């Protein structure tokens, strides 16, 4: 079995799983669809490992394979093939994606039990994994666009999974619409590239990029900016980020998979994959880096004041992706990808633990109502703590090594990038603050009612299920969450998944310790070998200096968080009062939603209403169709008036015409 065959099998497994689960919708008993879905993804992960092994069997210079399943068509110069590219970057991604997905599937098997839409959930989730793998393995722009669109669709159906909740369906639509903006950017970028390079194949485009485009040529900058738009939309960077916090309406495992580990990293992957283009157009890279940096800071500030625990984690994701985008935009490719991997581990873990916590709170997600769960949920606490420490970047957790890898690179590159690096450290400080704000508020302090009842062994249960955001009453039938709540301490699958991720979050960093080993960098080197920037490797000492600074900032952040939220609990309200205007700005999410509503949503709605009332009703219905209709009717009525039924009139007509014809001939013959 060659590397490409196993890569195709990686793709095939989740697709088959999705279809089989969907077809057997009513027949699967109990949790069978869940186990089937998990098994399929695990199989996919196994094939990904096989692909890795096969790939490593070749020398570093030869690890690039293109495999075409079939040639679809060749029209207008566009060679549309169903084609995958197997190289270190894509293998890295499929390993990360399928691995984390398998664990999240395992978690969901227990978490989503008793939900009436259980089978539908797993079909959708498998389809999502398939689309993500397709996106990552794509060998040409067309398959990339297909995968991109599918992933957006899967995100939509999974966010609005509880479709009878208005907030959920609205969030799904919002996510989809903003993703479409990204799709447009991607398609336009493909057009521009095709126009100049006459190909949609990755390798051909990359190869041609050096010849066809000059350094920073406007066309290439435009194309890369459009790719940047696509990446920003998918990865929820400012200004296309407003969908991500709303996407927390979906079930927690969905948030873990899509909005932490995989889909939102598609943007990072895109920029990393298109690095030959971005190398030639550094301006675009600078723009995306600045965008990532801004996101990093703004998202961290918002996370500081959010009350909904899932939204805190969502903004944290946004912020961390900002790091990754910053990294791959300036050339820290392997560092960025490394951070992607470790982030997948600890962010998924955080979401899983948050899911367990929310279940213990009988569905409530508000930090204001949580407290003191440390004794009641020890396992969840440990997992949350591990994830939080990894996120904060404390040694020896994986997050420390990966995040500071990026920042060290930025410092190394010097010039304006140092500013980005400093911003990164500021962000790291805020990360520590908001992470431990969560931990201290949820797990420390006085145990709340739910915690106390859990300590006694009763899992809290809401009498009337309500929408956590609006408080509307719901029921537990299909389209709403199921009646049962599952916490990690009681459900084995959840425990196993979280434990695996916790271990990975803890030790994942060993893959790239500066000065010791650089396995990720070496593994990804063939992909990025053509990039000038990848040769700029910061020296080990620079790396360790950066790591030390990172660790120091993390500890400082934890200490201050301890002071504010644990040791002296009135500090937080006091600070809020002292800095009220800033607090208002943060709580309103920097007014981005309102801005977009004003600038885009309202004009579009007005245009639509105008179109309906004027264009549709008056012009089309009354003017065009009504006009044609009444013209025909008038014509017919006029003609019908000649059919009087009076014989003599008909005869008179004949005589009249006879006279007229004779007159004509008389006149014309003179």
């Amino acid at each position, binding site marked *: 079995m060659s590397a490409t065959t196993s890569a195709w099998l990686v793709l095939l497994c989740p697709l088959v799983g999705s279809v089989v689960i969907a077809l057997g919708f009513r027949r699967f008993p109990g949790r069978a669809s869940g186990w089937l879905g998990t098994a399929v993804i695990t199989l996919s992960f196994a094939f990904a490992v096989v692909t890795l092994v096969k790939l490593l069997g070749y020398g570093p210079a030869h690890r690039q394979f293109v495999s075409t399943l079939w040639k679809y068509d060749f029209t207008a110069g566009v060679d549309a093939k169903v084609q995958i590219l197997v190289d270190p970057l894509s293998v890295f991604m499929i390993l990360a994606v399928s691995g984390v997905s398998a664990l999240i599937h395992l978690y969901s098997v227990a978490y989503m039990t008793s939900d009436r839409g259980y089978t539908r959930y797993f079909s959708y989730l498998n389809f999502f994994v398939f689309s993500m793998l397709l996106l990552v393995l794509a060998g040409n722009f067309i398959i990339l666009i297909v995968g991109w669109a599918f992933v957006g669709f899967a995100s939509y159906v999974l966010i609005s999974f509880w479709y009878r909740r208005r907030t959920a369906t609205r969030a799904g639509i919002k996510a989809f619409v903003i993703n479409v903006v990204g799709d447009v950017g991607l398609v336009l970028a493909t057009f521009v590239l095709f126009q100049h390079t006459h190909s949609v194949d990755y390798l051909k485009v990359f190869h041609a990029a050096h010849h066809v485009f000059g350094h920073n040529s406007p066309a290439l900058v435009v194309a890369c900016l459009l790719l940047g738009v696509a990446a920003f939309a998918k990865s929820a960077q400012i200004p296309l980020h407003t969908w991500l916090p709303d996407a927390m309406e979906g079930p927690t495992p969905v948030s873990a998979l899509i909005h932490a580990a995989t889909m939102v990293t598609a943007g990072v992957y895109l920029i990393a994959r298109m690095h030959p283009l971005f190398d030639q157009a550094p301006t675009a890279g600078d723009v995306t880096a600045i965008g990532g940096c801004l996101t990093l800071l703004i998202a961290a500030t918002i996370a500081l004041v959010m009350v909904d625990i899932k939204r805190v984690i969502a903004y944290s994701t946004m912020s961390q992706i900002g790091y990754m985008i910053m990294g791959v935009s300036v050339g820290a490719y392997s560092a960025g990808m490394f951070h992607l991997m470790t982030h997948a581990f600890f962010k998924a873990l955080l979401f899983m633990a948050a899911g367990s916590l929310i279940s213990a709170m009988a569905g409530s997600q508000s930090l204001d109502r949580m407290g003191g769960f440390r004794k009641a949920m020890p396992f969840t606490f440990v997992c949350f703590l591990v994830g939080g420490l990894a996120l904060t970047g404390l040694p020896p957790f994986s997050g420390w090594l990966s995040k500071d890898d990026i920042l060290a690179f930025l410092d190394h590159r010097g010039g304006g990038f140092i500013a980005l690096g400093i911003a990164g450290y500021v962000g790291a400080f805020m990360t520590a603050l908001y992470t431990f704000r969560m931990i201290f508020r949820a797990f420390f302090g006085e145990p709340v009612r739910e915690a106390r009842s859990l300590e006694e062994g009763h899992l809290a249960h809401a009498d009337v299920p309500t929408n956590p955001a609006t408080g509307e009453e719901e029921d537990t039938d299909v389209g709403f969450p199921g009646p049962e709540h599952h916490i990690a301490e009681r459900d084995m699958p959840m425990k196993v998944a979280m434990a695996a991720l916790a271990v990975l979050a803890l030790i994942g960093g060993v893959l790239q310790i500066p000065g010791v080993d650089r396995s990720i960098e070496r593994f990804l080197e063939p992909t990025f070998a053509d990039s000038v920037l990848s040769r700029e490797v910061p020296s080990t000492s620079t790396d360790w200096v950066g790591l030390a600074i990172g660790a120091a900032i993390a500890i400082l952040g934890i200490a201050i968080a301890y002071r504010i939220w644990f040791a002296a609990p009135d500090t937080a309200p006091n600070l809020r009062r002292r800095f009220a205007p800033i607090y208002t700005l943060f709580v309103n999410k920097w007014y981005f939603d309102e801005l977009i509503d004003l600038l885009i949503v309202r004009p579009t709605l007005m245009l639509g209403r105008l179109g309906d009332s004027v264009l549709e009703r008056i012009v089309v219905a009354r003017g065009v169709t009504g006009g044609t209709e009444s013209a025909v009717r008038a014509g017919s009525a006029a003609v*019908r008036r000649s059919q009087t039924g*009076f014989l*003599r*009139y008909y005869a*008179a007509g004949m*005589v*009249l015409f*006879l*006279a007229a014809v*004779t*007159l004509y*001939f*008389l006149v014309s*013959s*003179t």
Partner: protein
Amino acid sequence: MVVLRNPFYSVLALVFHLISLAALFLLLRAEFVAAAQVIVYAGAVMVLYVFVVAYVGGGTEPLTTGGRTLKILSPLFAIAVAAELCIALLGTALNGVSGKGAHFVLGFGTPRNIGRLFLTTYLFAFEIASILLLVSAVGAVVLARRRRGLEPEIEIERRVHIPRPAFTGTMAEAAGTRHPEPGLPELPSAGEAELEPTGAAAGPEGGGQEPSGPPYQGGW
């Protein structure tokens, strides 16, 4: 003939006209045609006409009701046609022909000549004419026969009022929007056949239409 009121008088006028025309044919030396005109046209066809006019009647018709426009316009049309034809004939057409006429061929209008032509050059027309006569004879018989036993001679407009509940047999009943009320409406007095147009039971809906008009008055 055209303006005579009584159709009888018109028929007689036409007979006189036909005989005059036969005289004109004689002047043109077309003896056979003249004879045929008198015997066939005036003798057979007009007799048929007389019979029919006697049967059908058709009294004096009032010329004034309706079609006033046409009464004024049609003479104008006719005069226009006549004038144009005359101009055509007298003005230009006859310049192309000599007014003298052709040399008289002996036996121009004799039956012998006509018969020879009929049975040689114009045989096809001859045969077709006979078939045409046959067809018209059959057609006339079919049209005018009395259909005994097939349809009773009932006027279309008169129907005996059969007592039925309101709305039976209407489209509204078929569509299910109205149901016939139970019980029969009050019977009319015995022996009286009420003349009602059909669908009278649906009177309220159909009351707006003229009763004697055709089913549709135009429009969709």
